[in-house]
């Protein structure tokens, strides 16, 4: 009997292959976007973990020096004072991060390199061996040191013995930091006594990089979730309709004595199989999406945060399992109400697919109430603010509230149109559109969300770009930037340049914790250039004169916001307490920055010498000087960057940052278009009874088809009009709430009407494309089919 029941149930899909297609494709797309984003995130996180693992950041306390360099004899002194510490030297060579460590004292399991091969280990200690990905090893042009390809080492990083690293980086007797082993002796001399200039830092949970990039990943996740929600709209619609259409079959089966329990189990099993199938397709598609996005994500993270992640995707079991799980879970979510109805259904209830497609007044009331509640919540959250999570909660409330409000508003607009209609045709058009609205509302909600996201994100990105370009023009004031390889060359370079340009501006900086946050301290020489180009967002009276007198510091907006600092607060820089005299905008920089004068800088960090210089000169002389520097002075081409080049590079980094967002935008819009197509196709078959009388009264099939397209255009336009304010609200939230929390800067919002118009055209075009097929189908419907409506009871 089970078999017969199953056959009867499955026959539905045979008769309605389109519905099955909708279900599978909808679910696949939802799973694909979700799992694609997850794969990208997982890959990036795995890369950070590999890096953090290599560097032991998350697990071990560290000892660091204010200037960044620990003399090796300090390390020996600490060991001999009972400190179980292990040395690490880090540096960059040929664009690769070289990390040296000591295998003998490093904690067990430190560094993802397998040294169980003893001969290899001895080679590491005696001759030096470089471990890294093939790509990183290839980039390293260093002399002949043995190389071992290891996929476990973080990308763009090469791991080696600390002695070898000192040679490669020409840092004889220098270390970057000391890892403090978790197990220390029962007694040891105090750090302040052995090495008063060094500081002990607790393990950094998650590491600096993970903290910085969290917001980026949260953005991606939010997008993935949005796409998934749009997909689930489709699935929910398809499953609901299938249930309604199968009611006669179910009624017959039950009348024949088929147990309800078994029936529910069969349908659930059927859905499980479908969801697994769709999930598998979705995960496969997700892999494609992720593989396509990953290089851009990698470029973005590298450009924005200096975080290296692998450019190649690995299939991780937890990832594809979670993809399948979310497909099954999403189907279960979408099918719950239908299964519940089935369980409650009277034995002989008749099928009412039309009624299903319609909507009860009570339900509409409930929906309007929920929409108002959510929109109210969004407003309330915008007033509270305070965290990234709240920002996203606000976005969610805003978007879902608006989606729920959409059918209610459209219904009112259409009723308004109907009341103004003068001809019978027009009246019928308005009324027919209005009664079709409930069936289309899910698809229209999807379109609304996709469009609003598009408007919001493109407004945010364009506003950001405008501000950023202006900021670059303002900040990159020097005509040419030059870099020396070492202190000796730097001195020679400065002497060489002094008579040749208007002004040589040394650029010196150190990385240090300020207010408990990672920050770089800059000490530019006092020059009109800085005064003119570092504009303050907030400043104390006489800010520049006081900063130039060494009485205080200026900080960037990021540091001010994250550290809760305002004008007049004090910060500690190299044990000196300095009042904050100015706060300046510093877009595109993920970390904090402190500005002091060169004099004060030299006092605070006597060991640090500038190895970079900004050169002020006539713009026309730049190429001649660059040539002299290369041919006469012998400076490598790579060590010179002219202003235009730097700007181009910065903008390139910026543009890549948002390539991913743009791609996800397009995909979301495509899913919404698909939803509309499927809804129209589904409705088309159900609508024959309404259309047949109109046709019988003389309206040709071709005209009916054109009216269908017109209707799609009307609905898409109305939705687009509503999406615009929603999108702008979204943009405001992104700029004023999410950006501030995620990046630490607030940007002015600009409007881009042309972009919005173009987007509206696209949305209407998508709707027309989606309506084209159903309309064509309608215009080709054989008259006999239409006639059947009158003869058949259906």
């Amino acid at each position, binding site marked *: 009997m089970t078999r017969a029941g199953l056959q009867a149930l499955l026959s539905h899909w045979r008769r309605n292959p389109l519905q099955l297609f909708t279900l599978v494709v909808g679910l696949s797309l939802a799973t694909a976007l979700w799992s694609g984003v997850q794969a990208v995130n997982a890959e990036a996180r795995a890369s950070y973990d590999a890096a953090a693992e290599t560097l032991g950041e998350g697990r071990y306390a560290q000892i660091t020096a204010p200037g960044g360099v620990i003399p090796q004899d300090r390390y020996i002194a600490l060991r001999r004072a009972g400190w179980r510490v292990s040395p690490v030297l880090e540096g960059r060579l040929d664009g690769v991060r070289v990390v040296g460590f000591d295998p003998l004292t490093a904690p067990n399991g430190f560094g993802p390199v397998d*040294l169980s091969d*003893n001969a290899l280990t001895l080679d590491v200690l005696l001759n030096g061996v470089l471990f890294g990905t093939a790509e990183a090893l290839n980039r390293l042009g260093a002399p002949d040191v043995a190389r071992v390809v290891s996929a476990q080492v973080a990308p763009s990083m090469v791991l080696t013995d600390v002695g070898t690293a*000192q040679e490669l980086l020409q840092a004889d007797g220098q270390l970057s930091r000391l890892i403090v082993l978790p197990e220390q002796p029962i007694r040891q001399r105090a750090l302040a006594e052995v090495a008063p200039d060094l500081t002990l830092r607790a393990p950094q949970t998650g590491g600096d990089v993970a903290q910085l990039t969290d917001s980026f990943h949260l953005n991606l996740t939010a997008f993935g979730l949005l796409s998934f929600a749009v997909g689930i709209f489709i699935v929910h619609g398809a499953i609901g309709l299938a249930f309604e259409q199968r009611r006669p079959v179910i009624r017959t089966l039950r009348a024949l004595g088929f147990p309800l329990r078994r029936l529910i189990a069969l349908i659930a099993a059927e859905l499980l199989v479908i969801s697994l199938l769709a999930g598998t397709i979705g995960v496969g598609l997700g892999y494609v999406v992720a593989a396509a996005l990953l290089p851009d994500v990698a470029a973005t993270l590298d450009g924005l945060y200096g975080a290296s992640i692998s450019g190649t995707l690995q299939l991780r079991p937890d990832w594809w399992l979670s993809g399948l799980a979310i497909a099954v879970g999403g189907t279960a979510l979408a099918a719950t109400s239908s299964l519940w109805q089935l369980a409650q259904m009277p034995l002989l209830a008749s099928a009412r697919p039309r009624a299903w497609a319609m909507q009860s007044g009570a339900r509409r009331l409930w929906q309007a109430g929920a929409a108002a509640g959510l929109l109210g919540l969004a407003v309330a959250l915008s007033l509270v603010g305070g965290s990234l999570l709240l920002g996203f909660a606000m976005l969610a409330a805003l978007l879902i509230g608006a989606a729920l409000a959409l059918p209610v508003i459209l219904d009112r607009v259409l009723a308004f149109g109907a009341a103004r209609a003068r001809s019978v045709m027009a009246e019928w058009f308005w009324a027919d559109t209005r009664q079709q609205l409930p069936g289309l509302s899910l698809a229209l909600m999807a379109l609304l969300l996709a469009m609003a996201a598009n408007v919001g994100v493109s407004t945010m990105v364009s506003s950001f770009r405008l501000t950023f370009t202006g900021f670059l023009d303002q900040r990159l004031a020097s005509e040419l930037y030059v870099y020396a390889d070492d202190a000796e060359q730097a001195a020679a370079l400065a002497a060489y340049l002094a008579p040749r340009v208007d002004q040589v501006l040394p650029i010196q900086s150190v990385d240090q914790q300020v207010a408990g946050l990672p920050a770089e301290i800059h000490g530019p020489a006092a020059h009109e250039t800085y005064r003119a180009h570092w504009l303050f967002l907030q400043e104390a009276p006489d800010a520049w004169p006081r900063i130039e007198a060494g009485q205080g510091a200026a900080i960037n907006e990021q540091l001010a916001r994250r550290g809760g600092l305002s004008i007049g607060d004090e910060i500690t820089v190299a044990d000196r307490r300095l009042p904050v005299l100015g706060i300046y905008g510093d877009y595109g920089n993920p970390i904090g920055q402190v500005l002091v004068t060169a004099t004060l800088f030299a006092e605070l960090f006597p060991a640090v010498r500038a190895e970079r210089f900004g050169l002020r000169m006539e713009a026309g002389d730049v190429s001649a000087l660059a040539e002299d520097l290369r041919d006469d002075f012998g400076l490598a081409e790579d060590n010179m960057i002219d202003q235009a080049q730097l700007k181009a590079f910065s903008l390139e980094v910026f543009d890549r940052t948002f390539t991913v967002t743009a791609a996800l935008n397009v995909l979301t819009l495509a899913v919404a278009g698909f939803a509309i197509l499927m809804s129209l196709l589904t409705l088309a078959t159900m609508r024959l009874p309404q259309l047949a009388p109109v046709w019988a009264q003389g309206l040709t099939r071709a005209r009916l088809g054109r009216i269908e397209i017109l209707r799609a255009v009307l609905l898409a336009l109305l939705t687009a009009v509503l999406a615009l304010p929603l999108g702008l609200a979204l943009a405001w939230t992104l700029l004023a709430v999410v950006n501030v929390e995620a990046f630490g800067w607030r940007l002015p919002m600009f409007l881009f009407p042309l972009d919005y118009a173009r987007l509206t055209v696209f949305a209407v075009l998508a709707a027309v494309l989606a309506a084209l097929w159903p309309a064509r189908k309608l215009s080709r419907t054989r008259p006999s089919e239409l006639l059947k409506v009158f003869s058949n009871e259906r």
Partner: protein
Amino acid sequence: MNVRGLAFLLFLPVAAVAQGFAGLGTETEGFAVPQRPAFFDFPADHGAHPGYRIEWWYVTANLEGEYGTPYGLQWTLFRSALAPEPGTGWSAPQLWMGHAAVTTPDAHHVAERLARGGIGQAGATAAPFAAWIDDWQIAGPDFDTLTMTASGPDFAFDTTLTAQGPIVFHGDSGYSVKSAQGQASYYYSQPFYDIAGTLTLPEGEVAVTGEAWLDREWSSQPLSEDQTGWDWFSLSLGTGKLMGFRLRQIDGSVYTSATWIDPQGRTTAYPDGAFQAEPVMRTEVRGNTVPTGWRVQLAAKGVDVTVAALNPQAWMDTTVAYWEGPVTVSGSHDGHGYLEMTGYD
């Protein structure tokens, strides 16, 4: 990374003697080899011999607390050379390993350190004498007056050692044969130290006094390939001191050697077979069956004693694991001493 595997290889020559892993450390590859007759040059020979593959400074002590509680103490520094040259900097081919332990009747505290030579983290100098790794150190103006310290996660000790007798030489004037095939090492001891100091233990500080025994040994190919482990005894028996070891072979036979030291420091060396040691009690230690009670005989001196571990659980859970701890002696003679057993894991 796997430091365990590393230490295993690097100190296997040491381990081969100290622990009896056969098959490695039997090649000399340019390293100097002990020659007969042995000639020593002090104080220079108290320092390191980088031309030899392996070397150690090995102190054991039997101590007593204020209320008569017995304690044992071990301080060991091993040197292992990858090439017969001192070298400088990180790539110097000299590696160092330290083991320290404090044994009480019911606890055994152990710590281990690894270091590279060439950067100052570990080393040994002759005059003034110092041997160190990290904060662990034996040092003094000369070899007769030394301070000795070490620390671990749950213990530390600070002691002074004062020699009450001369240095003694094992085997043929310090040329100690380690197998029937003739592998040998240079081997001398200072078994006459009085020791006093403080143990820092989880329960608090304990003032202790007692006797200590320092072994110095270096070589390049100490073991033959068919040896699997060894049992080493240093016993204070009232009428004299006895150093005896038993090298176990794969075929079940043993190679033994012993030195009798009279109270004036005069030595008598005994060839293979004179010294006998048979297990009489075994204990399950960390899943290994280890003989912790022995019948030890040296007929020529009328020695027939039972040697029993103070704490049978004195397992050295270091990268190269072995058993080492204080023992009590009863029978024809009464006394105390130290026992080291390798190759039982």
